[in-house]
């Protein structure tokens, strides 16, 4: 059975290289046939907002990076429902392919994971 690795991203977009280093780890784990769940909580949700002008701050578009992950067998991009509610970001502004799960569901997902890495 495949190893399940959950990567939790809680840092906002463009504040640091946490997002890039989290994605790098996810890609390498997926290359080793692990099932990778990318879970966005707290300010990490801002990485999923579409229409950000990343180039203006000399960065890469995080949504475009996330859109490409399915080609590397990372299919599960998950947002915590409670974080979404508290950040007041409208669902319609987020990357379409995300799954919204409650804190309880994410806790269950983490319980079932082999590895958990926080960024």
């Amino acid at each position, binding site marked *: 059975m495949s190893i399940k690795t959950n990567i939790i991203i809680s840092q906002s977009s463009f504040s640091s290289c946490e997002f890039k280093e989290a994605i790098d780890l996810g890609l390498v784990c997926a290359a080793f046939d692990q099932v990778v769940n990318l879970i966005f909580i707290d300010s990490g949700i801002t990485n999923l907002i579409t229409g950000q002008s990343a180039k203006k701050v000399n960065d890469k578009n995080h949504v475009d990076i996330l859109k490409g992950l399915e080609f590397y067998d990372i299919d599960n991009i998950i947002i915590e429902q409670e974080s979404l509610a508290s950040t007041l970001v409208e669902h319609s502004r987020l990357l379409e392919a995300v799954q919204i799960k409650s804190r309880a569901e994410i806790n269950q997902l983490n319980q079932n994971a082999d*590895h958990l890495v926080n960024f």
Partner: protein
Amino acid sequence: MSQELVILVSASPVKAQVHLTAIRFIEQLIKQQVAIRSVFFYQDAVTVANRFICPPSDEPQLAEKWQSISLEKQLELQTCVAASYRRGIIDNHQAEELSFKANNLHPSFKITGLGQLAAAMSDSDTKLIHFK
């Protein structure tokens, strides 16, 4: 087969207590004969491998502490190549590649790919412990 642990450290050495806790944890694991598969440094933790870091003498000398546990317990201290180069931790190979006069990698650490960590995590008998 018995379980092995993979130790991941991602905190900057400025957060010395995180590194000290990891070292104490490893010492206890070894006392209890728990096998350690690897020790991997990622994100800001890689800067502990900069041999030019000079902490005040009355503060923990983290590189020396890691060196001593590595020698004593035969543990390889692996740092992520991308995270290291991004933060200016350069081994001999990269120094030559970029025509730098010297490298700054502490001799007790080895720069490796993130694949080393993922490979260790891929083994069903390993458990990851993350010090952040």
